[in-house]
């Protein structure tokens, strides 16, 4: 009995730090190579005057392949792709709110395509969220999927 208890305790002790170390909290800068600079987000007026800057400029923005398969935690805003009357089950996670309406969308390496079958209740999506899950890096040759990162979420919580 004592032996088992010790074993369980040891196993538990071994597990806990590992689980914590496993989930890495990222910030958006870590999603792009350090030598790459995202195009600045400007005032909507700027885009009115410079129509050529309107559309996503850098669709082939570089990603960081080393992140592939990591369990990460990332904050951001939810742009719904699919959902039902209570929850959002598939969404794009973007670094700033209102991305895509008045200014160009963030470059592909600053958008994460999240699937979360359990679903995020709508009230949570009204503000920033923390998303935890396993990240996958898109292969560069896939021409169509222009979002750099896929994330299978295991948890989505309010940021505040």
């Amino acid at each position, binding site marked *: 009995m004592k032996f088992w208890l010790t074993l369980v305790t040891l196993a538990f002790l071994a597990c806990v730090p590992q689980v914590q170390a496993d989930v890495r909290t990222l910030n958006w800068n870590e999603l792009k190579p350090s030598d790459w600079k995202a195009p600045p987000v400007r005032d909507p007026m700027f885009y009115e005057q410079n129509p050529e800057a309107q*559309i996503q400029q850098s669709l082939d923005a570089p990603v960081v392949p080393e992140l592939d398969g990591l369990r990460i935690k990332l904050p951001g805003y939810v742009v719904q792709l699919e959902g039902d009357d209570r929850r959002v089950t*598939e969404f794009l996670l973007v670094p700033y709110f209102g991305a895509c309406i008045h200014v160009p969308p963030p470059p592909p390496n600053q958008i994460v*395509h999240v699937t979360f079958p359990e679903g995020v209740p709508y009230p949570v999506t009204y503000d920033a969220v923390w998303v935890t899950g396993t990240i996958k890096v898109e292969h560069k040759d896939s021409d*169509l999927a222009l979002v750099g990162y896929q994330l299978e979420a295991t948890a989505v919580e309010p940021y505040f």
Partner: protein
Amino acid sequence: MKLFRLALASLLSRKTNALLTIFAIAISVMLLLGVERVSQQTRAGFANTISGTDLIVGARSGSVNLLLYSVFHIGNPTANVSWQTYERFANHPQVAWSVPIALGDSVRGFPVIATEPAYFEHFRFAQQQPLTFVEGQPFAREQAVVGAQVAQQLGLQVGSELVVAHGTGSVSFHEHDDHPLIISGVLARTGTPVDQAIFISLRDLDIMHGGDHDHDHDHEHEHEHESHAGNDEHGHMHQSDEHNHEHQHGHTHQNHDHGHEHSHQNHEHEHASHEHEHVVQPPIPSISAFLVGLQSRPRAIFMQREINTYRDEPLTAIMPGATLQELWRTLSGFETALSIVSAFVLLTGLIGMLATLLASLRERRREMAVLRAIGAGPKTIFTLLVSEAVVLTAVGIAVGVALLYGMVAVLAPWIQSSFGVVVSLGAISTEEWQRMGIVLVASFFISCIPAWRAYRNSLADGLSMRF
């Protein structure tokens, strides 16, 4: 048990008061449950109406407005999208499928949606469910497909004739009766605005609106959707030299495939204006909106930007999910307000009950005194009053639920036809049971106040008459 019978008998002797109290509680309970139920079902109805569509594109307007008119058939389009623009995006390499829709007509108040047969293939509702036919098949020329509700209310089936009216009122005094359509199919019930809709081909709509009849032309070519003059008059109003200039701009900033598109487009325009013979004519000069499915869903965010910044025609592209999310966000304050209002309604109901009980206490002083004189202790009096209140509330709740179901049964068809929202007579949900429980418990505590007063009243208090 005896006590209960006593309470009942006492109540029966004060019927009017008791009935009014029950009614007040019933109304509050009905509102409390009804507000929640309607807002939830509205939500579900809205959320289930569209699925699987990545973008909806219409003329420049508000995103919610575009969503409402294109999917829910509420309100009207602000302006139209030219067929050329539609074709440009329909042939975009990122677009997997696209379906144009043109709105504005009706049959006895049911909206007419002019579209292409591909609509039935691509349109999805409630978590990717496709539309299915109860009988028949998608429309061909001079045919129509009707939703379940339309078929039921107008008594239509495959083979029936239908006359489309101009405008969206329930009665139009300008009917396109020279152009009757034959029903080719009836859709299965979906619980979405599709049930209310009538689907016809774009070409038929154009002809009804005075577009060129092209019967002879049709027989010559297999491409059914062709008309000569229609295009010239409407479609090319937008074409001008300025645009060529714009296109050149376009080459510089857009990536390769778009550039291609542009030059191709230019080519086509020139053809269109100079050599009528070889141009594929649009079935209709302009459409209200079009639904788009993309090769890759996450790509929607970029495609949306591209469409919104299209320089040749002001357009608005929305991601239906994101717009719904925006709508919920806008309405969340409203929903909170509604539940606060219903909570206050309930509070009013309970205070009303308290007032009635306190008033009746004065009236029943002699009754209490008599009861005590024949040996009822203060505790019995207390129990009597509390049990009376709880019984009143329980009956009130039951009546309230019955009223709610009655109201839903009566109003559901009206709600569905005016707002496109299906309110169903579902079972009572856990949350609703909870709310009813709260009401009952609240009534127990509230009734303790008069009961306590009655408990403290002395025996002599009731017996000695004071005038």
